[in-house]
Protein backbone atom coordinates (compact mmCIF):
# COMPACT_ATOMS: atom_id res chain seq x y z
CA UNK A 1 0.00 0.00 0.00
CA UNK A 2 1.52 3.31 -1.00
CA UNK A 3 1.48 5.53 2.03
CA UNK A 4 1.85 8.71 0.08
CA UNK A 5 -1.07 8.09 -2.26
CA UNK A 6 -3.77 10.71 -1.84
CA UNK A 7 -6.83 9.12 -0.32
CA UNK A 8 -9.96 11.11 0.48
CA UNK A 9 -10.85 8.78 3.37
CA UNK A 10 -7.52 9.52 5.07
CA UNK A 11 -7.99 13.26 4.64
CA UNK A 12 -11.49 13.03 6.07
CA UNK A 13 -10.18 11.02 9.02
CA UNK A 14 -7.61 13.67 9.82
CA UNK A 15 -10.15 16.45 9.37
CA UNK A 16 -12.57 14.86 11.85
CA UNK A 17 -9.78 14.11 14.32
CA UNK A 18 -8.54 17.69 14.11
CA UNK A 19 -12.03 19.02 14.75
CA UNK A 20 -12.43 16.58 17.64
CA UNK A 21 -9.08 17.48 19.19
CA UNK A 22 -9.94 21.16 18.84
CA UNK A 23 -13.24 20.62 20.63
CA UNK A 24 -11.38 18.94 23.49
CA UNK A 25 -8.88 21.78 23.80
CA UNK A 26 -10.93 24.85 22.87
CA UNK A 27 -12.91 25.32 26.13
CA UNK A 28 -9.73 25.32 28.17
CA UNK A 29 -7.89 27.45 25.66
CA UNK A 30 -10.64 30.08 25.79
CA UNK A 31 -10.52 29.98 29.58
CA UNK A 32 -6.79 30.60 29.38
CA UNK A 33 -7.31 33.47 26.94
CA UNK A 34 -9.90 35.05 29.24
CA UNK A 35 -7.45 34.78 32.12
CA UNK A 36 -4.88 36.86 30.22
CA UNK A 37 -7.07 39.86 29.39
CA UNK A 38 -8.74 42.35 31.66
CA UNK A 39 -12.41 41.92 32.47
CA UNK A 40 -13.62 44.48 29.95
CA UNK A 41 -12.15 42.45 27.07
CA UNK A 42 -14.14 39.42 28.23
CA UNK A 43 -17.29 41.53 28.35
CA UNK A 44 -16.91 43.31 25.04
CA UNK A 45 -15.72 40.40 22.95
CA UNK A 46 -12.78 38.20 23.74
CA UNK A 47 -10.03 37.95 21.11
CA UNK A 48 -8.82 34.48 20.17
CA UNK A 49 -5.28 35.01 21.40
CA UNK A 50 -3.76 35.56 24.84
CA UNK A 51 -3.31 39.11 26.08
CA UNK A 52 -0.87 41.17 28.12
CA UNK A 53 -2.69 40.98 31.45
CA UNK A 54 -1.53 37.47 32.24
CA UNK A 55 1.00 38.39 34.95
CA UNK A 56 -1.24 41.03 36.53
CA UNK A 57 -4.29 38.74 36.62
CA UNK A 58 -2.54 35.78 38.18
CA UNK A 59 -0.67 38.01 40.63
CA UNK A 60 -3.96 39.64 41.62
CA UNK A 61 -5.64 36.25 41.97
CA UNK A 62 -2.90 34.73 44.11
CA UNK A 63 -2.58 37.86 46.21
CA UNK A 64 -5.73 39.86 46.83
CA UNK A 65 -7.95 37.32 45.04
CA UNK A 66 -11.61 38.16 45.32
CA UNK A 67 -11.46 39.25 48.92
CA UNK A 68 -13.50 42.33 48.11
CA UNK A 69 -16.35 39.92 47.30
CA UNK A 70 -15.94 38.23 50.66
CA UNK A 71 -14.24 35.16 49.17
CA UNK A 72 -11.27 33.24 50.50
CA UNK A 73 -7.87 33.58 48.79
CA UNK A 74 -6.89 31.03 46.14
CA UNK A 75 -3.55 29.84 47.51
CA UNK A 76 -4.99 28.13 50.61
CA UNK A 77 -7.79 26.58 48.51
CA UNK A 78 -5.20 25.01 46.21
CA UNK A 79 -3.26 23.79 49.22
CA UNK A 80 -6.44 22.28 50.73
CA UNK A 81 -7.12 20.45 47.48
CA UNK A 82 -3.59 19.07 47.49
CA UNK A 83 -3.78 17.93 51.12
CA UNK A 84 -7.17 16.27 50.63
CA UNK A 85 -6.21 14.63 47.31
CA UNK A 86 -2.99 13.21 48.75
CA UNK A 87 -4.68 12.05 51.96
CA UNK A 88 -7.36 10.23 49.95
CA UNK A 89 -4.76 8.73 47.60
CA UNK A 90 -2.36 7.40 50.23
CA UNK A 91 -5.16 6.40 52.60
CA UNK A 92 -6.97 4.46 49.90
CA UNK A 93 -3.83 2.67 48.71
CA UNK A 94 -2.85 1.77 52.28
CA UNK A 95 -6.14 0.38 53.55
CA UNK A 96 -6.83 -1.42 50.26
CA UNK A 97 -3.45 -3.17 50.34
CA UNK A 98 -4.13 -4.33 53.89
CA UNK A 99 -7.68 -5.53 53.30
CA UNK A 100 -6.82 -7.23 49.99
CA UNK A 101 -3.98 -9.03 51.75
CA UNK A 102 -6.34 -10.17 54.51
CA UNK A 103 -9.02 -11.61 52.21
CA UNK A 104 -6.49 -13.24 49.89
CA UNK A 105 -3.88 -14.71 52.22
CA UNK A 106 -5.93 -15.79 55.23
CA UNK A 107 -8.67 -18.30 55.89
CA UNK A 108 -10.88 -17.00 58.66
CA UNK A 109 -14.57 -16.98 59.55
CA UNK A 110 -16.64 -14.16 58.00
CA UNK A 111 -14.12 -13.78 55.19
CA UNK A 112 -16.87 -13.85 52.57
CA UNK A 113 -19.03 -11.51 54.63
CA UNK A 114 -16.15 -9.02 54.80
CA UNK A 115 -15.82 -9.30 51.04
CA UNK A 116 -19.48 -8.40 50.55
CA UNK A 117 -19.36 -5.46 52.95
CA UNK A 118 -16.46 -4.06 50.95
CA UNK A 119 -18.33 -4.80 47.74
CA UNK A 120 -21.29 -2.75 48.99
CA UNK A 121 -19.30 0.48 48.58
CA UNK A 122 -19.49 -0.03 44.81
CA UNK A 123 -23.23 0.42 44.91
CA UNK A 124 -23.36 3.33 47.33
CA UNK A 125 -21.66 6.38 45.83
CA UNK A 126 -21.69 9.39 48.12
CA UNK A 127 -24.27 11.05 45.92
CA UNK A 128 -27.06 8.69 46.88
CA UNK A 129 -26.59 8.91 50.64
CA UNK A 130 -25.83 12.59 51.00
CA UNK A 131 -27.81 13.54 54.08
CA UNK A 132 -27.17 10.62 56.42
CA UNK A 133 -23.45 10.61 55.62
CA UNK A 134 -23.38 14.30 56.39
CA UNK A 135 -25.08 13.60 59.71
CA UNK A 136 -22.60 10.84 60.60
CA UNK A 137 -19.64 13.09 59.87
CA UNK A 138 -21.25 15.95 61.80
CA UNK A 139 -21.90 13.70 64.80
CA UNK A 140 -18.18 12.87 64.90
CA UNK A 141 -17.43 16.61 64.88
CA UNK A 142 -15.56 16.23 61.61
CA UNK A 143 -17.21 19.05 59.62
CA UNK A 144 -14.63 21.65 58.53
CA UNK A 145 -11.68 19.32 58.97
CA UNK A 146 -9.23 17.54 56.69
CA UNK A 147 -10.26 14.23 58.26
CA UNK A 148 -13.90 14.83 57.38
CA UNK A 149 -12.93 15.83 53.84
CA UNK A 150 -10.82 12.75 53.17
CA UNK A 151 -11.53 9.83 55.51
CA UNK A 152 -15.02 8.87 54.24
CA UNK A 153 -13.70 8.77 50.67
CA UNK A 154 -10.81 6.36 51.17
CA UNK A 155 -12.81 3.12 51.43
CA UNK A 156 -12.99 1.62 47.97
CA UNK A 157 -13.99 -1.77 46.68
CA UNK A 158 -12.29 -1.23 43.33
CA UNK A 159 -8.86 -0.68 44.86
CA UNK A 160 -9.25 -3.72 47.14
CA UNK A 161 -10.33 -5.92 44.22
CA UNK A 162 -7.45 -4.62 42.12
CA UNK A 163 -4.88 -5.62 44.71
CA UNK A 164 -6.62 -8.94 45.29
CA UNK A 165 -6.27 -9.70 41.59
CA UNK A 166 -2.61 -8.77 41.64
CA UNK A 167 -1.99 -10.95 44.70
CA UNK A 168 -3.78 -13.90 43.08
CA UNK A 169 -1.13 -13.92 40.34
CA UNK A 170 1.75 -14.13 42.84
CA UNK A 171 3.13 -17.71 42.81
CA UNK A 172 2.39 -19.78 45.92
CA UNK A 173 6.03 -20.91 45.96
CA UNK A 174 6.99 -17.45 47.17
CA UNK A 175 4.63 -17.72 50.12
CA UNK A 176 5.92 -21.20 50.93
CA UNK A 177 9.50 -20.02 50.76
CA UNK A 178 8.68 -17.09 53.03
CA UNK A 179 6.98 -19.36 55.53
CA UNK A 180 9.89 -21.81 55.53
CA UNK A 181 12.24 -18.90 56.16
CA UNK A 182 10.07 -18.00 59.12
CA UNK A 183 8.78 -14.72 57.67
CA UNK A 184 5.48 -13.59 59.19
CA UNK A 185 2.58 -12.27 57.10
CA UNK A 186 3.44 -8.59 57.56
CA UNK A 187 7.03 -9.13 56.53
CA UNK A 188 5.80 -11.00 53.46
CA UNK A 189 3.39 -8.16 52.60
CA UNK A 190 6.07 -5.50 53.00
CA UNK A 191 9.02 -7.24 51.35
CA UNK A 192 7.33 -9.35 48.67
CA UNK A 193 3.80 -8.26 47.81
CA UNK A 194 4.15 -4.48 47.91
CA UNK A 195 7.32 -4.41 45.77
CA UNK A 196 5.60 -6.76 43.32
CA UNK A 197 2.58 -4.40 43.13
CA UNK A 198 4.67 -1.28 42.44
CA UNK A 199 3.27 -0.59 38.97
CA UNK A 200 -0.30 -1.20 40.13
CA UNK A 201 0.20 1.18 43.03
CA UNK A 202 1.49 3.85 40.64
CA UNK A 203 -1.50 3.31 38.37
CA UNK A 204 -3.91 3.57 41.26
CA UNK A 205 -2.11 6.70 42.44
CA UNK A 206 -2.94 8.56 39.21
CA UNK A 207 -6.60 7.56 39.16
CA UNK A 208 -7.14 8.27 42.84
CA UNK A 209 -5.31 11.59 42.82
CA UNK A 210 -7.56 12.83 40.02
CA UNK A 211 -10.61 11.48 41.87
CA UNK A 212 -9.59 13.13 45.13
CA UNK A 213 -8.63 16.46 43.61
CA UNK A 214 -11.86 16.68 41.62
CA UNK A 215 -14.27 16.06 44.52
CA UNK A 216 -17.10 18.55 44.50
CA UNK A 217 -20.25 17.51 46.34
CA UNK A 218 -18.43 16.17 49.37
CA UNK A 219 -16.42 19.32 50.21
CA UNK A 220 -19.52 21.35 49.44
CA UNK A 221 -21.35 19.55 52.24
CA UNK A 222 -18.40 19.27 54.63
CA UNK A 223 -17.25 22.88 54.72
CA UNK A 224 -18.89 25.96 56.14
CA UNK A 225 -15.58 27.55 57.16
CA UNK A 226 -13.94 29.06 54.07
CA UNK A 227 -10.53 28.05 55.45
CA UNK A 228 -11.36 24.47 54.38
CA UNK A 229 -12.67 25.24 50.89
CA UNK A 230 -11.10 23.19 48.13
CA UNK A 231 -10.47 24.94 44.85
CA UNK A 232 -12.91 22.87 42.75
CA UNK A 233 -15.88 23.74 44.96
CA UNK A 234 -14.55 27.27 45.47
CA UNK A 235 -14.91 28.05 41.78
CA UNK A 236 -18.67 27.95 42.04
CA UNK A 237 -18.56 30.60 44.79
CA UNK A 238 -16.27 32.72 42.65
CA UNK A 239 -18.48 32.42 39.60
CA UNK A 240 -21.55 33.42 41.61
CA UNK A 241 -19.89 36.17 43.66
CA UNK A 242 -21.15 39.02 41.56
CA UNK A 243 -24.81 39.58 40.82
CA UNK A 244 -24.05 41.11 37.48
CA UNK A 245 -21.34 39.41 35.43
CA UNK A 246 -18.77 37.10 37.01
CA UNK A 247 -15.22 38.43 37.26
CA UNK A 248 -14.41 36.31 34.22
CA UNK A 249 -10.69 37.04 34.15
CA UNK A 250 -10.26 35.87 37.75
CA UNK A 251 -12.73 32.98 37.52
CA UNK A 252 -10.96 31.64 34.45
CA UNK A 253 -7.52 32.08 35.99
CA UNK A 254 -8.79 30.00 38.92
CA UNK A 255 -10.13 27.40 36.49
CA UNK A 256 -6.68 27.12 34.89
CA UNK A 257 -4.91 26.78 38.24
CA UNK A 258 -7.49 24.26 39.46
CA UNK A 259 -7.22 21.96 36.47
CA UNK A 260 -3.44 22.05 36.09
CA UNK A 261 -2.42 19.64 38.90
CA UNK A 262 -4.56 16.65 37.83
CA UNK A 263 -3.83 17.34 34.14
CA UNK A 264 -0.09 17.39 34.85
CA UNK A 265 -0.30 14.14 36.82
CA UNK A 266 -2.19 12.44 33.99
CA UNK A 267 0.16 13.84 31.33
CA UNK A 268 3.38 12.96 33.16
CA UNK A 269 2.18 9.51 34.21
CA UNK A 270 0.27 8.72 31.01
CA UNK A 271 1.23 5.04 30.95
CA UNK A 272 0.27 4.48 34.57
CA UNK A 273 -2.91 6.47 34.00
CA UNK A 274 -4.12 4.23 31.17
CA UNK A 275 -3.14 1.11 33.13
CA UNK A 276 -4.99 2.40 36.18
CA UNK A 277 -8.08 3.24 34.17
CA UNK A 278 -8.38 -0.29 32.80
CA UNK A 279 -7.42 -2.05 36.02
CA UNK A 280 -9.83 -0.25 38.30
CA UNK A 281 -12.72 -1.17 36.04
CA UNK A 282 -12.25 -4.90 36.40
Amino acid at each position, binding site marked *: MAATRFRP*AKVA*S*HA*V*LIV*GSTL*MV*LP*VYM*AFVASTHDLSRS*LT*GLPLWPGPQIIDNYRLLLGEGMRSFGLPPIGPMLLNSLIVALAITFGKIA*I*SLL*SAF*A*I*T*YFQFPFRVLAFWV*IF*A*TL*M*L*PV*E*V*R*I*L*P*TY*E*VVASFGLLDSYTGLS*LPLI*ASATATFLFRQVF*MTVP*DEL*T*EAARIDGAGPLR*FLWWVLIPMSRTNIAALFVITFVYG*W*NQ*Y*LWPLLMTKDTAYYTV*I*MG*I*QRLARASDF*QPQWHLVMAT*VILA*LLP*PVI*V*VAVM*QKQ*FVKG*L*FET*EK
Partner: protein
Amino acid sequence: MRGKRVTFPGIAVPALLLAPQLAITIIFFVWPAFQSLRGALFQQDAFGLGENFVGLDNFTKLFGDPAYAASFGLTLVFAFATTALCMALALLFAALADGVVKGAAIYKSLLTWPYAVAPAIAGVLWWFLFNPTIGLFARGLNALGIEWNHYLNGGQALTLVIIASAWKQVSYSFLFFLAGLQTIPKSLLEAASLDGADGFTRFRKIVLPLLMPTTFFLAVTNLVYAFCDTFGVIHATTAGGPGTATTTLIYKIYQDGFEALDLGSSAAQSVVLMAVVGSLTLIQFRYIERNIHY
Protein backbone atom coordinates in the same frame (compact mmCIF):
# COMPACT_ATOMS: atom_id res chain seq x y z
CA MET B 1 -14.62 -15.90 46.31
CA ARG B 2 -11.34 -17.70 45.98
CA GLY B 3 -8.36 -17.09 48.23
CA LYS B 4 -4.84 -18.42 48.10
CA ARG B 5 -4.03 -22.12 48.37
CA VAL B 6 -1.10 -21.32 50.64
CA THR B 7 -2.22 -19.04 53.44
CA PHE B 8 -1.05 -17.70 56.75
CA PRO B 9 -2.59 -18.93 59.98
CA GLY B 10 -4.42 -16.78 62.47
CA ILE B 11 -7.61 -14.77 62.93
CA ALA B 12 -6.37 -11.73 64.83
CA VAL B 13 -3.98 -10.60 62.10
CA PRO B 14 -6.49 -10.59 59.22
CA ALA B 15 -9.07 -8.99 61.51
CA LEU B 16 -6.67 -6.15 62.26
CA LEU B 17 -5.73 -5.81 58.60
CA LEU B 18 -9.37 -5.55 57.60
CA ALA B 19 -10.35 -3.26 60.45
CA PRO B 20 -9.60 0.14 58.84
CA GLN B 21 -11.46 -0.58 55.63
CA LEU B 22 -14.38 -2.30 57.33
CA ALA B 23 -14.73 0.45 59.92
CA ILE B 24 -14.80 3.20 57.30
CA THR B 25 -17.16 1.21 55.11
CA ILE B 26 -19.61 0.50 57.90
CA ILE B 27 -19.50 4.00 59.42
CA PHE B 28 -19.61 6.03 56.23
CA PHE B 29 -21.33 3.71 53.73
CA VAL B 30 -23.48 0.99 55.23
CA TRP B 31 -24.79 2.93 58.22
CA PRO B 32 -25.75 6.05 56.21
CA ALA B 33 -27.41 3.90 53.56
CA PHE B 34 -29.37 2.19 56.31
CA GLN B 35 -30.24 5.61 57.72
CA SER B 36 -31.50 6.70 54.30
CA LEU B 37 -33.76 3.70 54.24
CA ARG B 38 -34.95 4.39 57.78
CA GLY B 39 -35.32 8.12 57.16
CA ALA B 40 -37.51 7.38 54.20
CA LEU B 41 -39.99 5.64 56.47
CA PHE B 42 -40.28 8.56 58.88
CA GLN B 43 -41.50 12.10 58.67
CA GLN B 44 -39.12 14.48 60.40
CA ASP B 45 -39.84 18.05 61.26
CA ALA B 46 -37.42 20.56 59.82
CA PHE B 47 -35.58 21.09 63.10
CA GLY B 48 -34.90 17.41 63.64
CA LEU B 49 -36.70 17.51 66.98
CA GLY B 50 -39.18 14.79 66.36
CA GLU B 51 -40.14 12.11 63.88
CA ASN B 52 -43.16 9.94 63.24
CA PHE B 53 -43.24 6.60 61.54
CA VAL B 54 -45.12 7.07 58.29
CA GLY B 55 -44.40 3.78 56.53
CA LEU B 56 -44.27 4.10 52.79
CA ASP B 57 -46.02 7.49 52.81
CA ASN B 58 -42.88 9.29 51.64
CA PHE B 59 -42.68 6.97 48.64
CA THR B 60 -46.38 7.20 47.85
CA LYS B 61 -46.17 10.97 48.03
CA LEU B 62 -43.03 10.95 45.94
CA PHE B 63 -44.48 8.86 43.14
CA GLY B 64 -47.65 10.94 43.19
CA ASP B 65 -45.69 14.17 42.93
CA PRO B 66 -45.67 15.58 39.39
CA ALA B 67 -42.47 17.51 40.20
CA TYR B 68 -40.71 14.24 40.97
CA ALA B 69 -42.05 12.57 37.85
CA ALA B 70 -40.80 15.54 35.85
CA SER B 71 -37.39 15.32 37.45
CA PHE B 72 -37.27 11.58 36.75
CA GLY B 73 -38.17 12.05 33.11
CA LEU B 74 -35.71 14.90 32.79
CA THR B 75 -32.96 12.78 34.33
CA LEU B 76 -33.60 9.96 31.86
CA VAL B 77 -33.40 12.39 28.94
CA PHE B 78 -30.26 13.95 30.39
CA ALA B 79 -28.57 10.62 31.17
CA PHE B 80 -29.33 8.95 27.84
CA ALA B 81 -28.48 12.06 25.81
CA THR B 82 -25.19 12.52 27.66
CA THR B 83 -24.31 8.84 27.29
CA ALA B 84 -25.27 8.70 23.61
CA LEU B 85 -23.46 11.91 22.69
CA CYS B 86 -20.33 11.00 24.59
CA MET B 87 -20.15 7.43 23.28
CA ALA B 88 -20.92 8.33 19.66
CA LEU B 89 -18.12 10.90 19.62
CA ALA B 90 -15.74 8.58 21.47
CA LEU B 91 -16.38 5.70 19.06
CA LEU B 92 -15.98 7.96 16.04
CA PHE B 93 -12.69 9.39 17.32
CA ALA B 94 -11.39 5.98 18.42
CA ALA B 95 -12.18 4.32 15.09
CA LEU B 96 -10.45 7.12 13.19
CA ALA B 97 -7.48 7.41 15.56
CA ASP B 98 -6.99 3.65 15.30
CA GLY B 99 -6.81 3.95 11.51
CA VAL B 100 -4.31 6.78 11.10
CA VAL B 101 -0.54 6.52 11.49
CA LYS B 102 0.62 10.10 11.22
CA GLY B 103 -0.18 12.18 14.28
CA ALA B 104 -1.90 9.26 16.04
CA ALA B 105 -0.01 9.88 19.28
CA ILE B 106 -0.90 13.58 19.26
CA TYR B 107 -4.57 12.92 18.62
CA LYS B 108 -4.64 10.35 21.40
CA SER B 109 -3.09 12.76 23.91
CA LEU B 110 -5.40 15.62 22.94
CA LEU B 111 -8.48 13.42 23.11
CA THR B 112 -7.47 11.85 26.41
CA TRP B 113 -6.48 14.63 28.77
CA PRO B 114 -9.96 16.08 29.60
CA TYR B 115 -10.36 12.99 31.77
CA ALA B 116 -8.46 14.97 34.41
CA VAL B 117 -10.90 17.90 34.32
CA ALA B 118 -13.44 17.98 37.16
CA PRO B 119 -17.12 17.88 36.11
CA ALA B 120 -17.71 21.21 37.86
CA ILE B 121 -14.89 22.79 35.84
CA ALA B 122 -16.18 21.29 32.62
CA GLY B 123 -19.48 22.93 33.48
CA VAL B 124 -17.94 26.35 34.08
CA LEU B 125 -15.92 26.14 30.84
CA TRP B 126 -19.00 25.55 28.70
CA TRP B 127 -21.06 27.97 30.76
CA PHE B 128 -18.52 30.61 29.71
CA LEU B 129 -18.56 29.61 26.03
CA PHE B 130 -22.36 29.72 26.00
CA ASN B 131 -22.76 32.88 28.09
CA PRO B 132 -25.61 34.65 26.28
CA THR B 133 -23.91 38.05 26.01
CA ILE B 134 -20.21 37.30 25.86
CA GLY B 135 -19.76 33.58 25.11
CA LEU B 136 -17.98 32.62 21.90
CA PHE B 137 -20.52 29.93 20.95
CA ALA B 138 -23.56 31.91 22.06
CA ARG B 139 -22.48 34.84 19.89
CA GLY B 140 -21.88 32.44 17.01
CA LEU B 141 -25.38 31.04 17.42
CA ASN B 142 -26.83 34.53 17.67
CA ALA B 143 -25.09 35.42 14.42
CA LEU B 144 -26.79 32.38 12.84
CA GLY B 145 -30.13 33.70 14.04
CA ILE B 146 -30.50 31.30 16.97
CA GLU B 147 -31.17 33.25 20.10
CA TRP B 148 -29.25 31.52 22.88
CA ASN B 149 -30.07 32.21 26.50
CA HIS B 150 -29.85 29.30 28.89
CA TYR B 151 -30.83 31.62 31.75
CA LEU B 152 -34.34 31.84 30.30
CA ASN B 153 -34.68 28.86 27.98
CA GLY B 154 -34.97 25.53 29.82
CA GLY B 155 -34.23 23.40 26.78
CA GLN B 156 -31.06 25.34 26.11
CA ALA B 157 -29.99 25.02 29.74
CA LEU B 158 -30.45 21.25 29.51
CA THR B 159 -28.49 21.20 26.25
CA LEU B 160 -25.69 23.12 27.94
CA VAL B 161 -25.31 20.66 30.83
CA ILE B 162 -25.55 17.69 28.44
CA ILE B 163 -22.74 19.10 26.28
CA ALA B 164 -20.52 19.88 29.27
CA SER B 165 -21.15 16.47 30.88
CA ALA B 166 -20.53 14.57 27.65
CA TRP B 167 -17.40 16.59 26.83
CA LYS B 168 -15.82 15.69 30.14
CA GLN B 169 -16.55 11.99 29.67
CA VAL B 170 -15.56 11.52 25.98
CA SER B 171 -11.94 10.73 26.83
CA TYR B 172 -12.89 7.88 29.15
CA SER B 173 -14.99 6.11 26.52
CA PHE B 174 -12.41 6.97 23.86
CA LEU B 175 -9.67 5.08 25.72
CA PHE B 176 -11.85 2.00 26.23
CA PHE B 177 -13.03 1.96 22.61
CA LEU B 178 -9.46 2.36 21.43
CA ALA B 179 -8.32 -0.56 23.58
CA GLY B 180 -11.25 -2.61 22.30
CA LEU B 181 -10.37 -1.82 18.68
CA GLN B 182 -6.79 -2.85 19.19
CA THR B 183 -7.84 -6.36 20.25
CA ILE B 184 -9.60 -6.96 16.94
CA PRO B 185 -7.33 -9.14 14.77
CA LYS B 186 -6.19 -7.23 11.71
CA SER B 187 -6.24 -10.49 9.71
CA LEU B 188 -10.02 -10.59 10.11
CA LEU B 189 -10.39 -7.15 8.59
CA GLU B 190 -7.96 -7.95 5.78
CA ALA B 191 -9.85 -11.12 4.94
CA ALA B 192 -13.10 -9.16 4.76
CA SER B 193 -11.36 -6.57 2.64
CA LEU B 194 -10.24 -9.27 0.18
CA ASP B 195 -13.81 -10.49 0.05
CA GLY B 196 -14.74 -7.04 -1.19
CA ALA B 197 -16.22 -5.52 1.96
CA ASP B 198 -15.70 -1.74 2.01
CA GLY B 199 -14.63 0.19 5.07
CA PHE B 200 -18.12 0.94 6.29
CA THR B 201 -19.31 -2.64 5.86
CA ARG B 202 -16.23 -3.95 7.69
CA PHE B 203 -16.98 -1.57 10.54
CA ARG B 204 -20.64 -2.51 10.73
CA LYS B 205 -20.29 -6.27 10.30
CA ILE B 206 -17.04 -7.00 12.13
CA VAL B 207 -15.83 -4.14 14.31
CA LEU B 208 -19.14 -3.13 15.87
CA PRO B 209 -20.22 -6.65 16.96
CA LEU B 210 -16.78 -7.29 18.46
CA LEU B 211 -17.03 -4.01 20.37
CA MET B 212 -20.36 -4.94 21.95
CA PRO B 213 -18.93 -5.91 25.37
CA THR B 214 -17.02 -2.61 25.55
CA THR B 215 -20.09 -0.71 24.42
CA PHE B 216 -22.28 -2.32 27.04
CA PHE B 217 -19.76 -1.70 29.78
CA LEU B 218 -19.37 1.95 28.75
CA ALA B 219 -23.11 2.50 28.47
CA VAL B 220 -23.64 1.42 32.07
CA THR B 221 -20.61 3.36 33.36
CA ASN B 222 -21.68 6.52 31.56
CA LEU B 223 -25.26 6.23 32.79
CA VAL B 224 -24.04 5.95 36.38
CA TYR B 225 -21.77 8.94 35.72
CA ALA B 226 -24.72 10.93 34.39
CA PHE B 227 -26.92 9.97 37.34
CA CYS B 228 -24.36 10.83 40.03
CA ASP B 229 -21.13 12.56 39.03
CA THR B 230 -22.74 15.32 37.01
CA PHE B 231 -23.94 17.06 40.16
CA GLY B 232 -20.93 19.39 39.89
CA VAL B 233 -21.73 20.33 36.29
CA ILE B 234 -25.26 21.38 37.25
CA HIS B 235 -24.55 22.94 40.62
CA ALA B 236 -21.73 25.10 39.28
CA THR B 237 -23.68 26.35 36.24
CA THR B 238 -27.46 26.26 35.98
CA ALA B 239 -28.17 25.35 39.64
CA GLY B 240 -31.09 23.26 38.48
CA GLY B 241 -32.72 26.11 36.58
CA PRO B 242 -34.20 27.98 34.94
CA GLY B 243 -37.16 26.86 37.04
CA THR B 244 -36.60 23.14 37.32
CA ALA B 245 -35.33 22.64 33.77
CA THR B 246 -32.06 21.02 34.89
CA THR B 247 -33.10 19.67 38.29
CA THR B 248 -31.97 16.08 37.88
CA LEU B 249 -32.67 13.47 40.57
CA ILE B 250 -29.33 13.96 42.28
CA TYR B 251 -29.73 17.74 42.28
CA LYS B 252 -33.24 17.40 43.68
CA ILE B 253 -32.02 15.21 46.54
CA TYR B 254 -29.50 17.88 47.43
CA GLN B 255 -32.00 20.71 47.05
CA ASP B 256 -34.81 19.05 49.02
CA GLY B 257 -32.47 17.80 51.72
CA PHE B 258 -30.15 20.75 52.22
CA GLU B 259 -32.11 23.76 51.06
CA ALA B 260 -35.77 22.88 51.56
CA LEU B 261 -34.99 20.60 54.54
CA ASP B 262 -37.67 18.13 53.48
CA LEU B 263 -35.71 15.28 55.02
CA GLY B 264 -38.22 12.47 54.59
CA SER B 265 -38.71 13.15 50.92
CA SER B 266 -34.98 13.59 50.32
CA ALA B 267 -34.30 10.25 52.02
CA ALA B 268 -36.96 8.49 49.95
CA GLN B 269 -35.43 10.00 46.80
CA SER B 270 -32.01 8.76 47.91
CA VAL B 271 -33.38 5.25 48.28
CA VAL B 272 -34.87 5.34 44.77
CA LEU B 273 -31.64 6.59 43.22
CA MET B 274 -29.68 4.06 45.25
CA ALA B 275 -31.86 1.31 43.79
CA VAL B 276 -31.31 2.60 40.25
CA VAL B 277 -27.55 3.00 40.58
CA GLY B 278 -27.21 -0.21 42.59
CA SER B 279 -28.98 -2.32 39.99
CA LEU B 280 -26.95 -0.79 37.16
CA THR B 281 -23.75 -1.65 39.06
CA LEU B 282 -24.94 -5.19 39.76
CA ILE B 283 -25.88 -5.80 36.13
CA GLN B 284 -22.46 -4.59 35.10
CA PHE B 285 -20.63 -6.64 37.68
CA ARG B 286 -22.42 -9.84 36.74
CA TYR B 287 -21.76 -9.13 33.10
CA ILE B 288 -18.05 -8.55 33.60
CA GLU B 289 -17.73 -11.68 35.71
CA ARG B 290 -19.38 -13.75 33.03
CA ASN B 291 -17.02 -12.29 30.49
CA ILE B 292 -14.01 -13.28 32.55
CA HIS B 293 -15.20 -16.85 33.05
CA TYR B 294 -15.95 -17.53 29.40
